């Protein structure tokens, strides 16, 4: 009998996790990852408190890290929203990367072909082209899923690859090649994004989209249909919701949002396309996958995604000081990000299960 009496913990399934619990669990996961990373910092001889205060003071200093923090953070927000809208119908949009590249192509094509246009016309045109290109690319994956039942994850990943190499071929030795090996020609000055308090105006566009998306998903008829479909395709069928059409719709919206980030990413600073060498494969595109983690952690709430994205952006920016300022080994910054993301993902477990002590 003794063997049966030793274990005192028991898992219980949680039917529905509330917003408050989600916030608590996420904060807990952050604390946890900070503690784990402290161990690595200590091993490398750094004072964790000192390191963390350096990270955040750098990331939030308007003269140092803040512009990049905001720029990157809100880039993540675009990806998150692209993921959230599709995942509300329970489609895994992992095609944000491809949609972002396509959006880039759309925006740059407009800028290169009409460099003399007035910014007030050129910039909206670039955004529009980015959104349309991204939407088309998303719709393609949505169509494959909705009409032909091709798994959207497989479809998206393959399309991502195609999109990356399209940008690569255009930029490296292609028609858009610049002077440096892996960068494009600079954008015409008229295409540069106006900066409003430290960050391109498109950052505010992202916040606006988040709020609109929140209202769309929770208050509109189409948003309701998307959520019914996401919760139960059978129930959706029983009340006359057209699943294929809805799948295409969410992927199109998601694609359009991700496509907009093609302009946001490049048009402020440095204002030209930087394609890393294939060895350092797709460094920027890879950032879009944060959208998945942030979306899930925020329980698909677009408004909650705003601060979360900026926070991740601050860690992204701030952790660079570990190497540059504190002279710690290269790679520690990346390790920190990896830790945060993996504990975020692992703590999702507590969204579904509650650990109970047995008496």
């Amino acid at each position, binding site marked *: 009998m003794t063997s*049966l009496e030793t274990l005192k913990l028991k898992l219980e399934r949680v039917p*529905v996790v509330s917003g408050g619990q989600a916030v608590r669990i996420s904060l807990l996961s952050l604390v946890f990852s900070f503690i784990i990373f402290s161990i690595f910092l200590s091993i490398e001889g750094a004072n964790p408190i000192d390191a963390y205060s350096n990270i955040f003071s750098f990331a939030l200093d308007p003269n140092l890290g803040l512009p990049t923090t905001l720029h990157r953070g809100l880039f993540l927000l675009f990806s998150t929203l692209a993921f959230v809208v599709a995942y509300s119908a329970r489609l895994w949009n992992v095609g944000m990367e491809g949609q972002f590249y396509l959006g880039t192509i759309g925006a740059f094509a407009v800028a290169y072909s009409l460099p003399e246009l007035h910014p007030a016309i050129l910039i909206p045109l670039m955004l529009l082209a980015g959104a349309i290109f991204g939407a088309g690319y998303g719709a393609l994956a949505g169509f494959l899923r909705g009409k032909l039942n091709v798994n959207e994850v497989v479809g998206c990943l393959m399309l991502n690859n195609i999109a990356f190499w399209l940008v690569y071929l255009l930029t490296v030795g292609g028609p858009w090649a610049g002077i440096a090996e892996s960068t494009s020609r600079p954008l015409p000055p008229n295409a540069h994004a106006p900066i409003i308090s430290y960050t391109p105006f498109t950052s505010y566009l992202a916040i606006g989209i988040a709020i609109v998306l929140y209202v769309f998903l929770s208050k*509109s008829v189409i948003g*309701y249909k998307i959520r*019914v479909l996401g*919760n139960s395709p059978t129930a959706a069928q*029983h009340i006359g919701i057209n699943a294929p059409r809805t799948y295409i719709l969410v992927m199109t919206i998601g694609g359009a949002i991700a496509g907009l980030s093609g302009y946001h990413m490049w048009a402020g600073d440095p204002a030209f396309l930087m394609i890393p060498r294939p060895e350092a494969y797709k460094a920027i595109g890879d950032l879009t996958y944060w959208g998945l983690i942030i979306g899930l952690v925020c329980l698909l709430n677009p408004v909650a995604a705003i601060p979360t994205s900026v926070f991740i952006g601050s860690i992204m920016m701030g952790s660079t000081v570990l190497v540059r300022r504190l002279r710690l080994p290269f790679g520690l910054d990346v390790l920190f990000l990896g830790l945060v993301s993996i504990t975020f993902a692992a703590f999702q477990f507590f969204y579904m299960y509650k650990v109970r002590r047995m008496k």
Partner: protein
Amino acid sequence: MHREVGRGEAILEVRGLTKIYPGGVVALDNVDLEFKSGEIHAILGENGAGKTTLMNILFGVLQPDRGEIYVHGRKVRFRSPLDAINMGIGMVHQQRKLIPAHTVLENIILGHPEAGKILDFKKVRRDIEELCRKYGFKIDLDARVWQLSAGEQQLVEILRALYRGAKILILDEPTSVLTPLETEAFLTSLKSMSRQEIALVPFVTHKLPEVFAISDRVTILRRGKVVKRIETKDATMKALAEHMVGKEVLFVLSKPKVSIGGEILKVENLSAMNDKGLLALKNVSFTIREGEIFGIAGVSGNGQQELAEVLAGLRRVETGRIIFMGRDITNASVLERLKMGIGYIPSERLGVGVIGGFSLAENILMSLYFDKEFVNRGLLNYKKIREYAEKVISEFEVVAPSINTKAAYLSGGNLQRLVLSRVIPKTSKLLIANLPTTGLDIAATEYVRKRLLECKEKGMGVLLISDDLDEVLQISDKIAPIYEGRFVSILQAEEAQKEVVGAMMTGAYSER
């Protein structure tokens, strides 16, 4: 008929069992029970009486907050079902947990601790054949499970438990999916098993008569408490039912006199395939008129599901026509039918009828979202939706703290009330009710039937699909026994005799 009881050895005993769920719901309150070998000890109770909790505790799925469990007089603690199995407790679930494509033998071996090692199939076969002989089971060990009837599948589950050394068998609603004929055979097997040193514990919500017939002892749970312990020979069915519900039970609902009006639905030579692409509904024709309940009696899987889905627009029609209010709707979409006033109560509640992660109001919205009254320029008018939801939820007596409660927290009967409150007020002409009372307790069942009769009174046509023959006989105006996708006959309720309908729906009767 009844043997002397109480002579066997106590195999399993629980004392002072208490379980309180988060949120303060007391599921079990100080329950004492004793299960003896050679005895069939039935546990009766309505939905929400604590039966499932008790079952889960006995089988190690849940841990009690207070109280002790004794096996053969020794105090134990079950950490998981595996501990319970190792202590000789077997469970036969209501939902079969067998692999249809595998043989009986393979299914019995599956999950056995020896199964990881190299198996001596010959020895295993001999052992199981020995078990079958001992308990008088007749079953082909090489048959594939999908070829077996529901009753035989249940025997396989029992064999599996016995092969793992079970001395006490917990049976969750053992007869709920069996036809009358199968039930009889199955109960005979149980009876002969109980003569050996096995304790049987059937848990029952409905289907009282069957269990009543074979049990030695009955314990009734209500709201987590034991309200009655009685030896079957001293009990009457009516008294048991009253203890379960806690009030006088109306076993007979009075059918309101309603004048039958014009034709609502006319179905001509309708055929449809099932999911496997086989013809499941064959050439069915009938009409439903205003104020009429058209009952379809049959054992599940004889084409009822397909018929319901075809009428609701969820399944393609192969041949034939559906005329609704004089209009051909054979190819109309689900949404068009909903807008015409056709309501559908699906057989599955959670996940189809309602969505667990949605609040009550959002669930009610499933029947409103296409209604202009609740939509303003593409946006949902939540104020109106909430008002409406409050109204129908109180009208249909859904018990919940508020309309913001998630449906996942509702129990079976309440869940069905929620489905009804969503569907019925928005149905004006034809209600299709697919297994509306399956799995519900007596009070909830009675409630659902009353609501269906109310629809009839209001002049709607109702298509009732049920595997409960008594229910069909009790509230329908016309009865169509269905067998292998065909209506064997269409009878007026007054002329339908239970024996005849029962024979018709099991294929034992053919009209010349």
